[in-house]
C-alpha cells in the first residue's frame, strides 16, 4: 500500500465515523424527549456533518480521482465503508444514544487533540476545529449520563443497560491495521493504543459520578477496518443513498 492509498483509506474512516454518527443523531430530530434536547442533538449532528464534509472532501483530493465528498458518501456500498460499528447501531433509546455519545466523544476528545500535531497540515487544521466541538459533545454526554444514572430507578437501569450492551463495541475504536502502522510511523496520525488509558479514565470517571458500574471487558466486536459491518449499515445506506442511486444522472 502506498502512502497515498493508506492516507485515503484512513481519512475515509474518519469521515465515515462522522457521517454515520451524524445520521443516527439526525434521526432524533422531532423525536427528542423535549424541545431543547431536540435542538441540542441536532447541533451535534450538524457538527458531525460539517466534519464529514471536510474529511470526505479531503479524502477525495488525496485519492486524486475526482471523487467529491458526495460521491464518496452516496456512491459507496457497505463493504466500502470504514466507520466503527458503534456509530451505526440504531439509536434504540435516549440512554443508548447518550452512552454512545459518551464513548465516542471520550475517544474523539483524546484522538483529535493528538491529531492536531499531525504532520499533515490539513488533518491538523480539521482536528483543531473539531476538538472544540468534541469538548462540548463530551460535556453534554457526561452531564446526561450523570443525570440518568442519578435520576430514577428506571433511568439508571436504562443507561446501565446501554453501557453494558455497547461496551463490546468500544475496543474497536482503538484497533489499528496496516494503514495506521504506516501513517503513525510518519507522524501523520496518532497511535490509537496510546489513547486507551485516557479514554478509560474519562469514561470510568463519568460512570462513577453517575453511580453506574463500569463493565468488565469481555469479547469485543470487530470488523469495520475491513469493511465488515452489522446488518444495520446496509439499511442506513439504502435510505441515505436512495435519491443518488435512483437518479444517477441528477444533480441536487
Amino acid at each position, binding site marked *: 500500500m502506498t502512502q497515498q492509498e493508506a492516507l485515503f483509506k484512513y481519512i475515509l474512516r474518519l469521515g465515515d465515523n462522522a457521517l454515520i454518527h451524524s445520521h443516527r443523531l439526525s434521526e432524533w430530530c*422531532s423525536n427528542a*424527549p*423535549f424541545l431543547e434536547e431536540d435542538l441540542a442533538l441536532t447541533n451535534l449532528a450538524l457538527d458531525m456533518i460539517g466534519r464529514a464534509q471536510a474529511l470526505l472532501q479531503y479524502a477525495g483530493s488525496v485519492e486524486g480521482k475526482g471523487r467529491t465528498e*458526495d460521491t464518496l458518501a452516496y456512491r459507496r456500498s457497505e463493504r466500502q465503508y470504514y466507520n466503527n460499528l458503534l456509530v451505526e447501531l440504531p439509536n434504540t433509546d435516549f440512554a443508548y444514544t447518550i452512552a454512545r455519545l459518551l464513548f465516542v466523544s471520550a475517544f474523539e476528545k483524546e484522538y483529535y487533540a493528538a491529531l492536531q500535531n499531525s504532520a499533515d497540515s490539513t488533518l491538523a487544521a480539521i482536528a483543531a476545529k473539531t476538538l472544540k466541538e468534541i469538548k462540548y459533545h463530551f460535556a453534554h454526554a457526561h452531564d446526561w449520563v450523570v*443525570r440518568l444514572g442519578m*435520576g430514577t430507578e428506571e433511568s439508571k437501569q436504562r443507561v446501565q443497560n446501554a453501557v453494558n450492551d455497547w461496551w463490546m463495541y468500544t475496543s474497536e475504536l482503538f484497533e489499528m491495521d496496516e494503514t495506521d502502522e504506516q501513517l503513525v510511523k510518519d507522524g501523520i496520525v496518532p497511535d490509537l493504543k496510546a489513547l486507551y488509558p485516557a479514554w478509560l479514565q474519562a469514561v470510568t470517571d463519568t460512570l462513577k459520578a453517575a453511580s453506574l458500574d463500569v463493565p468488565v471487558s469481555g469479547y469485543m466486536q470487530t470488523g469495520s477496518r475491513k469493511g465488515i459491518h452489522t446488518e444495520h449499515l446496509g439499511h442506513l445506506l439504502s435510505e441515505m443513498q436512495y435519491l443518488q442511486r435512483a437518479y444517477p444522472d*441528477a444533480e*441536487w
Partner: protein
Amino acid sequence: MDQVQDIVSKDRAMLARFEERVQAGDAVEPRDWMPEAYRKHLIRQISQHAHSEVIGMQPEGNWITRAPSLRAKQILLAKIQDEGGHGLYLYSAAETLGITRTEMIGQLHTGKAKYSNIFNYPTLTWADIGAIGWLVDGAAIVNQVSLQRTSYAPYSRAMVRICKEESFHQRQGYEIMAKMMKGTAEQKEMAQDAMNRWWWPSLMMFGPHDSDSPHAADAFRWKIKRHTNDELRQKFIDKTVPQAELIGLTVPDPDLKWNDEKGGYDHGEINWDEFKQVINGNGPCNKQRLQHHKQVHDNGAWVREAAEAYKARTNNQSSN
C-alpha cells in the same frame, strides 16, 4: 350590588385606558393590565403558532435521512432545528401570559389547540422539501413580518427574532426548486408535481376570507393582527407568481391572471371545503402528526422524570 357596579365601572375604565394605549401604538408587557379576552386570544394564537412550528418539523424531518447531498442534508437539518427553536420562542412568549408549556402540549394532544393545516399534507418527494421552503415558509414569512409589530411585546420580540432567522428558509426552498427545474426530465416533473400539490394549501395558510374569520374584529382593535388574511394572501401571490415563472414552473390555477387595475393577480376560488375538512381532522396526515407528537412525548417522559429526580437529589445534597 354597589360593589359589583364599582368593579364593572373600574374594569370599564381599565379597558378604555388599555385600548387607548394600544391604539397609540404602545407595546403591552406581561405584567400590564389586559382584558381577559385579549389574554385568551393571544394564548390561542401564540400557542397555535408554536404548535405549528413544532408539528411542522415532522413533514420536513421525513427527508433528513434521505437528503441527496451532504450540503442539502446540512441545510435541511439546520432549517428544521430553526423551526424547533421558533416553537420554543413562541411557547416562551405564551408562558408569559400565565399558561405553561405542559398545559399547551396537553391542549394540543386533546385537540383543543390547533396547528397550521398545511402540516397535515404529506412530503412525498424531495421536491416537496423545496416546495415547503419556498411556498410554505414564503407564506409564513409574509404573515410573520406583519406580526413583528403586534401589540403584545413578548410575541413581537419572538417574531423579530424568528423573521431574522427565517430569512434563509425560503431561499433554500427556492434554490431546490430552481436546481430541479434545470435538471433532468424526472426532476422537472417532480418539481411541478410538488408545485401542484402545495400551491393551494399554501394559499389556505392565510385562513378564511376576512368576512368569515371568527376572531378578526378583536384582533384588529387590539393590534394583535395588523393586516387582513386576504391582504396577506394577495401579497404572497403577487411576489410568488413571478418567482414561479422565472424558473419555469406553472401555477396550477387556470383563473390566475394579472389585474392591472388593482396592481395584483386575480386568482381562482380556494377549496374551502377541503380547508374545513383538514381543520376538522380529515387531512391526509392529521392523525399521523398528532400520534407522532404524543408518542415522542410519552417516550421522553422517563428522561424528563430522570432530570427532575436528579434535580431533587442534588438540591437536597446542597442544602444538607
